[in-house]
């Protein structure tokens, strides 16, 4: 199995996740807009994928046997850019072009603009279907790749997610792994108030999925779940990752004001201190 770099240990991944979080707050500050909250909640899972679990090659982003990652909640793309830059898909210096004219780092992921971005997302609900198509195509060709799709917990209010969930189980797409970033918030407020999505574990189970229920910030659990999910069991797997929106920056944690708002310069400094 070709794998980019040496697989990081859990303590190394924890440091990497912190580094990615620093990139996120800096990028969003430089852009003057963006979505820090949902990027920070996803940071540990994304770090584990890019620096331990996924087989991929930043020097060859179209390598047919690579694993795929789709950020279906496309507004959290800053964390993906941060991981890609650190992994070597493009220079870290390019991160500050986020959301600016002529940048490859579009406000939401654009597959045609940036090699390594697997799907264009940002209209919520679409990523799981695209990932299922990839999983079916890869299986037809006898490739062993795994497709990971990260969903937001607000995002699963979209009906298309459940169309894809039903179809993935029907087609026994066991090379497809969904990760639900269960940070309990959506744009307008807590999911429990806006649109209750519980019981999420029961819902996925009822749709025929294998469910792994984890603390999405406990790196050991994250790595273990992502690796266990690669087993071919005849069912797709969903990892329900319980997370904290804004994780790692005290004043952003569980503060939905930072769903889609950039920090001020002072706030940035404080965030970088906390993430040092």
């Amino acid at each position, binding site marked *: 199995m070709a794998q980019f770099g040496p697989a990081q240990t859990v303590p190394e991944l924890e440091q990497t996740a912190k580094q990615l979080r620093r990139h996120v707050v800096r990028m969003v500050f430089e852009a003057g807009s963006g979505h820090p909250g949902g990027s920070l909640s996803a940071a540990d899972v994304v770090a584990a994928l890019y620096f331990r679990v996924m087989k991929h090659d930043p020097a060859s982003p179209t390598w*047919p046997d690579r694993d795929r990652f789709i950020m279906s909640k496309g507004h959290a793309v800053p964390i993906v850019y941060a991981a890609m830059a650190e992994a070597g898909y493009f220079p870290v210096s390019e991160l500050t072009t986020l959301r600016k004219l002529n940048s490859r780092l579009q406000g939401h992921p*654009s*597959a*045609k603009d940036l090699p390594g971005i*697997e*799907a*264009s*997302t*940002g*209209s919520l*609900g*679409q990523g*799981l*279907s*695209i*990932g*299922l*198509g*990839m*999983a*079916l*195509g*890869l299986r*037809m*060709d006898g490739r062993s790749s795994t497709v990971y799709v990260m969903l937001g917990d607000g995002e699963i209010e979209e*009906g*298309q997610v459940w*169309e*894809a969930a*039903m*179809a993935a189980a*029907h*087609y026994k797409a066991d090379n497809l792994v969904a990760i639900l970033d269960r940070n309990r918030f959506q744009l307008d407020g807590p999911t429990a108030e806006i649109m209750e999505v519980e019981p999420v574990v029961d819902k996925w189970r009822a749709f025929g999925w294998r469910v792994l229920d984890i603390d999405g910030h406990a790196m050991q659990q994250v790595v273990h779940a992502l690796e266990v999910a690669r087993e071919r069991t005849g069912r797709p797997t969903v990892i329900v990752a319980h997370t904290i929106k804004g994780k790692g920056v005290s004043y952003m944690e569980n503060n939905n004001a930072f769903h889609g708002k950039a920090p001020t310069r002072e706030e940035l400094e404080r965030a970088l201190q906390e993430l040092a």
Partner: protein
Amino acid sequence: MGRPLGMATRQAYGKALVEAGKLYPNVVVLDGDLSKSTMTADFAKAFPDRFINVGIAEANMVGIAAGLATTGKIPFASSFACFLMCKGYDQLRLAVTYAENNVKIVVSHGGISIGEDGVSQMSVEDVALACALPKMVVMVPSDEHCTRQAVLAAAAHEGPTFIRTGRPKAPLVYSAPPADFRIGKAIQVRDGSDVTIIANGLMVAAALDAADILQQRGVGARVLDMHTVKPIDEEAVCRAAYETRAIVVAEEHLSYGGLGGVVAQAAARLRPTRMEFVAIDDTYAESGDMDGLMEKYGLTAKDIVAAAERALAPAKAHPAAVTA
């Protein structure tokens, strides 16, 4: 009228798809529980391992097709025009055309000629929707032979492609697959020097019938099968505007956003000329028999003749000038 009926363009699609499946081992086909109507069932029988029935879930189907395309497949996704284009549009926009994925969308039951099932199953807006997707090639073939060529051209073309097919048996425009079929190049199926009728889909046969009637009245009508709406054949439009005195556009679609608008835009830029339009005028249709519907909603050879005669009549004074 006089033209012999061939098979429905959706049937021709089903057969051409099997041909494409033999030519390209990476062609895969998706359907949303309508394979016996869109005729992808032919492919499902021939290549069961390359057929995916997604159930009644058009949005999911388009997303899956996009994902398949990223793995090097050539996915053809089919459903009724109204369901696929309306329920799958967000996915067409983001997952297919924005990402420039090589997905083929082939819809059946375009237009009002589907008849008795009525408005919920009739698509009068699909061509406009398809044209509003950047990079999407948009084709509306006229008969079984034209459809075969369109499907094989779509399989060979690298990029998102839309083809509209119809439910009823289609009158034959060609006696064999037109060898000169090229995406974006109109086929002149009849020459004439007074007026040019530009049509696609079922309206090409109606245009040929109209040309026969006009001939009896001493008017020579050129007929262009404009099977590709986007990219439009600007050269053919320009030549029609130079070489004949007027253009009539005929399509089984709303008058807004379809072939008429596209041709008018090209003519306005390159060579403004007198134009008339035969299309559905800002309304939905209703249940009924096909011939009755085509007559009630103004989509017959007779309507094309009347439009040609209006276009060729001496220009009237501007209404504002009359009242002044």
